[in-house]
């Protein structure tokens, strides 16, 4: 599915405005959104998800205007992996992941245990994210990284062609972070469309096919990884001297502090 953001702007509390900006992400593409704290990364993701409407401009999923789609149609088109969630009560990991199927089930079936085809799908999502062993644990008792993997499993269970990820590997250890990114990579290769806001520039450079660099709500650079990841504009935007060299294995940009 193609995600198009056309001339979108959103004014927040005095002194901050996101955009106007336009972005397009085609199927099989993985866009990274980077920028300093408060640059508007999360706001842009929320607008892309339809969580927050833009003041001007519009978002389209293929040719459908997002503003015209209801909650169920949206949930079939895109899944969101938030930075974190807190639950007030103990729900099991399996119940949380099963919620990904909620909008796919007819009303009568929602009250019953999952039918076998649905259960197999949910179990596959648990296995893919290495959370199968956690399925009977309470979500609240998991570590931050484990919770993040469960949230990815829930998003996968939604079966949506567009995935929006907000700092998805922020609390993952290096092993699970790599596993997470490889999994998203296979989804992209299968034709999913992925947008990921992230702080780790080197991770974005290895994983993504294109990058949007935001600062103060405005686009500083937008294009391929090699175009955007140059000492300038990175150093200016982050107000710290940054250098770029080719990664010894992948050859993609590796960002480092010059001092």
């Amino acid at each position, binding site marked *: 599915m193609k995600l198009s953001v056309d001339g979108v702007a959103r004014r927040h509390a005095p002194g901050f405005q996101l955009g106007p900006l336009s972005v397009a992400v085609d199927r099989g593409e993985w866009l990274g959104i980077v920028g300093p704290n408060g640059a508007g990364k999360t706001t842009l993701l929320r607008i892309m998800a339809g969580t927050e409407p833009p003041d001007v401009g519009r978002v389209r999923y293929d040719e459908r205007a997002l503003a015209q789609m209801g909650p169920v149609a949206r949930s079939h088109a895109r899944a969101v992996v938030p930075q974190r969630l807190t639950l007030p009560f103990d*729900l099991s990991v399996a119940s949380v992941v099963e*919620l990904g199927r909620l909008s796919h089930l007819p009303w009568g079936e929602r009250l019953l245990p999952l039918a076998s085809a649905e259960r197999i799908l949910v179990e596959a999502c648990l296995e893919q994210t290495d959370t199968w062993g956690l399925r009977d644990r309470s979500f609240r008792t998991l570590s931050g990284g484990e919770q993040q993997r469960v949230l990815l499993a829930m998003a996968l269970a939604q079966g949506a062609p567009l995935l929006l990820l907000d700092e998805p590997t922020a609390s993952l250890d290096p092993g699970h972070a790599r596993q997470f990114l490889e999994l998203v990579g296979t989804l992209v290769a299968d034709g999913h469309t992925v947008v990921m806001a992230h702080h780790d520039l080197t991770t974005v450079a290895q994983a993504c096919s294109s990058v949007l660099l935001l600062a103060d709500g405005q686009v500083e650079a937008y294009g391929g990884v090699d175009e955007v990841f140059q000492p300038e504009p990175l150093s200016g935007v982050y107000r710290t001297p940054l250098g770029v060299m080719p990664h010894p294995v992948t050859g993609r940009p590796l960002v480092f502090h010059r001092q």
Partner: protein
Amino acid sequence: MAAGRRLALAGLALLASITAGVAHGPTALSLATVLSVLVHPTSHLASVIVWQIRMPRVMAAALVGAGLAASGVAMQALLRNPLADPYIVGASAGAGLGAVLTATVVGALVPAGAFVGALVAVAATYAVARSRGQVQTLTLILAGYALGIMLAAVQTFILLLHQHSLATVFSWEAGSIHGMTWTPVGLAALLILPAALLLVPLTPAMNALLLGDEAASHLGVHVSRLQLLLLALASVMTAAAVYLSGLIGFVGLVIPHVVRRLTTADHRQLLPLAILWGAAFLILADTLSESVPGVGTVPVGLLTAVLGGPYFLWLLVRTQRQGVVF
């Protein structure tokens, strides 16, 4: 334990408490007599006592317990807050003011005044907390709190001017099901039972709501509509319960917690279990409140606190020791 067994156990507990409720009373009737007139109503005194005096009271207790427990489950899911109870968004203060206004101005119809007051107060809280079609749950709690304090102040002021109504209002606020007849029970049943049934299909979406409003909407839940439905159904049940019995505390807060701790937080099971246990618990509490040794009849609202409070504290301490987080 499987879902079916849990439901069967709760259903049996409810049947047992109904039987205990109608078998117990100031007039001694043997269990055999009670069971026989339950199956074959006659015109004998025993049958009149069971069907016209004890049964309305037992059914009122069942309805109030079920309604408050279901309302508590809905409010705790809606507000994602373990401290939420059926009265949290202004229902109790509204009911109190409604009761005082009818007691002082009309001189009768206190339950009806309480019913209307509860609904109006919740609607007002919702109207204040709603902006651009969305309701922030924290705003809802704070607005309910502020409105509650204002309404309570007005209530106190009116009571000061009409001190002769103090006794009526005070005994109403303590919560009692004494001297119940079939007509109000039937009216309340017409509100509580359909509202509880309408909650059932909402339980899967209530699970999603535990993840937060935004995550629920990402999963395809129409959040603002769900919020309005939960608030409306919970308030109708609360108002109907208040209409029957005055302000009975504790049941709506604690029954959902106890059931959740002993079984599951999955609303598909939690709601029916809380309804059955809430009804069974209040019947039992009401039966015991009939004849407290040395005191006679006390308001059932007092007994729910005295009975349930220590048990809930014990459950808190026990599950805390098992490492379960609240």
